[in-house]
């Protein structure tokens, strides 16, 4: 009994093979197909299995991946890509221009189950020039093409998937994917793990670890526990989890700015929020510094407009972040006709109180705490917000998409490009805040059509200046992704985890000889 117990408990710490295996968490079972699977679990694995034509470097600029060079036509209406020679799929078949054309034919066809079509709605089609050259035909000049090609558009193998809907290729999607990445599939245990093994014929640098194991660990507290117990090597955490990883032996904490802006969206189609002055005033009333320090524990950058600081080529660094100025807020609101009543609540000429419902999705402490902070700050100037938490799916489908809300605390994660046409141009599908500003419309249209980086920068600077006077949303902060990693893990790219996985061959473990 004693012996069996000690045997049972005895073999601890790094299990055999652990030194050369990188273990990461997933929150759900992935579908191995980047075109049809937009969920976070699938995206993470697919970034490893299926390289795109380009990938973002640590400055988020596109660098060669499956394409080695590219050239835009002078009129911006087409792009020509020269593909990398001698690349093979994981099954040994050669990679060629046919695969690229096949992938984009599928992306542009909604019937295939494509979830990437809106990313590439400016693309008219892809032509094969020769076996290693493709040409993208555009409907209009489209500057974000390169960042988008390095985002989710992994290239699929035509020779395996041709001839049926992508969603019907169940074996491929669930157990036997074939990509061109630095790791290929070894084993899938549904609900538990996905094991990838080093691809010996990878076209780039030799991968630094022998295996990558993605473990399905849906609960973030369980992820933290497994990291601390040495069963995971790299996780991303919420500010709330910092206390559980800071100062823990064998764990280090990293942070990287990510291309997100978290905001309170006010429905501009309602009378209460239609005035730019009101939206600007509310912006002054929220103490973002306190939120960034208190809720995000400093792991956030203070915002100017909707273009986050992570896009350093485009962020308007000349302007200071929006200040906390409750007095200015009161003054502006008074000028818009909102004056304090006897109980301090602001009222308009008709005597209606400035009161509304602030929606937030439930279950995420960072967003819930931010919503509470916003509510308290607005309360201080007499604006009464009632918080309503909803399940994310219901919030999006029933309130945000049909724009039947007054205010919502939500966020956008965007490709590494300043193009925000879909979110803030009048009447676009994703313009859920119903913001409409003609100057912004033309700036954002011009911005996505302009290739020259200097001109483009000037356009988006003008857009950010305009946002100071007519804020489309109340940007709260630009979060930084917090990564907690085993101290043995090296070569972690200074990128958000999703983009970092585009460089998965760089991960490696420190040599253990001296430590044990």
């Amino acid at each position: 009994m004693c012996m069996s117990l000690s045997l049972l408990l005895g073999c601890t710490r790094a299990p055999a093979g652990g030194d050369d295996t990188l273990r990461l968490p997933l929150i759900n079972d992935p579908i191995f197909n980047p075109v049809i699977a937009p969920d976070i679990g699938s995206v993470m694995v697919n970034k490893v299995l299926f390289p795109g034509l380009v990938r973002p470097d640590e400055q988020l600029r596109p660098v060669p991946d499956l394409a080695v060079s590219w050239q835009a036509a002078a009129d911006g209406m087409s792009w020509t890509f020269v593909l990398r020679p001698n690349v093979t799929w994981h099954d040994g078949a050669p990679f060629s221009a046919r695969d690229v054309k096949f992938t984009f034919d599928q992306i542009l066809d909604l019937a295939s189950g494509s979830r990437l079509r809106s990313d590439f709605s400016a693309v008219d089609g892809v032509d094969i020039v020769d076996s290693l050259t493709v040409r993208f035909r555009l409907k209009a000049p489209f500057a974000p093409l390169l960042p988008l090609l390095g985002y989710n558009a992994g290239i699929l193998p035509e020779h395996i998937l041709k001839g049926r809907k992508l969603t019907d290729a169940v074996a491929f999607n669930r157990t036997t994917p074939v990509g061109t990445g630095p790791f290929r599939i070894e084993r899938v245990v549904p609900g538990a793990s996905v094991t990838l093994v080093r691809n010996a014929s990878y076209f780039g640098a030799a991968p630094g670890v022998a295996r990558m194991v993605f473990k399905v660990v849906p609960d973030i507290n369980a992820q933290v526990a497994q990291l601390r117990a040495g069963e995971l090597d790299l996780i991303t955490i919420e500010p709330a989890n910092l206390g559980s990883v800071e100062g823990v032996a064998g764990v280090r904490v990293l942070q990287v700015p990510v291309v997100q802006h978290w905001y309170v969206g006010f429905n501009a189609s309602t009378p209460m929020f239609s005035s730019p002055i009101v939206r600007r005033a509310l912006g002054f009333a929220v103490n973002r510094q306190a939120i960034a320090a208190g809720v995000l524990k400093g792991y956030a950058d203070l915002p100017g407009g909707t273009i986050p600081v992570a896009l350093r080529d485009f962020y308007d660094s000349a302007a200071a972040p929006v200040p906390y100025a409750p007095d200015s807020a009161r003054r502006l609101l008074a000028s818009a006709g909102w004056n304090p009543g006897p109980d301090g609540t602001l009222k308009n000429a008709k005597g209606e109180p400035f009161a509304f419902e602030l929606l937030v999705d439930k279950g995420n402490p960072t967003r819930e705490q931010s919503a509470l902070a916003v509510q308290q700050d607005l309360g201080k100037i007499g604006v009464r917000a009632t918080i309503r938490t909803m399940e994310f799916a219901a919030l999006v489908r029933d309130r945000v998409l049909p724009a039947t809300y007054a205010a919502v605390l939500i966020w956008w994660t965007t490709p590494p490009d300043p193009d925000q046409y879909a979110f803030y141009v009048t009447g676009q599908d994703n313009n859920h805040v119903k913001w409409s500003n003609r100057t912004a419309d033309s700036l954002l249209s011009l911005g996505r059509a302009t290739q020259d980086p200097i001109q483009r920068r000037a356009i988006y600077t003008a857009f950010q200046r305009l946002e100071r006077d007519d804020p489309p949303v109340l940007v709260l902060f630009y979060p930084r992704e917090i990564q907690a990693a085993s101290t043995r893990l090296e070569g972690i790219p200074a990128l958000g985890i999703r983009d970092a996985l585009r460089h998965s061959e760089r991960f490696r473990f420190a040599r253990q000889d001296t430590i044990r």
Partner: protein
Amino acid sequence: MIRFLLRRLGHGLFVLFVVSTVTFAIMSAAPGGPSLLADPKLSVAERAAIESRLGIDQPVTVQYTRWLGRAVRGDLGASFLYQTSSLSTIGSRLPQTLLLAGTALLLTIGIGIPLGMSAAARPGSRLDRIVTSSSGIALAVPAFWLGMILILVFAVWARLLPAGGAVTEGVSLGLLDRLRHLILPALVLAAAGCAEVVRYTRSAALTTLALPFVQALRARGISPARVLWRHGLRHALVSVVSVIGLQLPRLVGGAAITETVFSWPGMGRLGVEAALGRDYPLVMAVTLVVSAGVVVASIMADLAQMLLDPRIRTA
């Protein structure tokens, strides 16, 4: 016996029909829809394409009739989230659930009945008090909480046992590795049930001991311990079996919490994920499979009771 079985099976089928109808109704009425549609970046055209691909653009009655028609033929549809057939998705998780629930059940019975009997042997003794109060505590501790504490103590601080998963992923270490992963979740899952069995066993045994025939046996000079273990146990088992039957939904469905805390790839978690993600076919399939399991188990519990208790058998 055969007639009894047939009648119970008929009841079971009716039960399953009721379960499926109610589940489908509640699910379809819920706002939000499948989480596939909960992407604020979706364009109107993309949404429409997804809805028609999943068949959820049809009226609920049409959806249900279609589902029922296929279900009768054994086809429970493909999961929205996983794309594979719901039954094969469940099939891939079922062994893990059976392993965990089975181990927990063994622990429940193996610990619960002897403890309950020992406590009943000397009511009011120190052992009895310890057993009674610790079972009271075990009943009062939320499972997720117990799980987190055990992980913190045994995995994070002491590093004796793994913090989660069913095996060490990526390497094959065999049976011992499986066992090590099984210990904590099985204990957590067994805790409340075990406490319940302890209490039932104890009180059933005490009730039995108070019965006239036991008194008579004692009067004839048969040792109290022997009376307890031979007669008390048998009577206690009759009621304990039905309690265990009632535990099955908890062991399978309620394991969801334990499975989430320990990242165990079982069916309970699959069901919760399906319910939260509004994966209609999968929710239906999981509910049906678990309900069918409970129906079968309760028939078996009845049979076991008939075998154990001659009075029921003759009735």
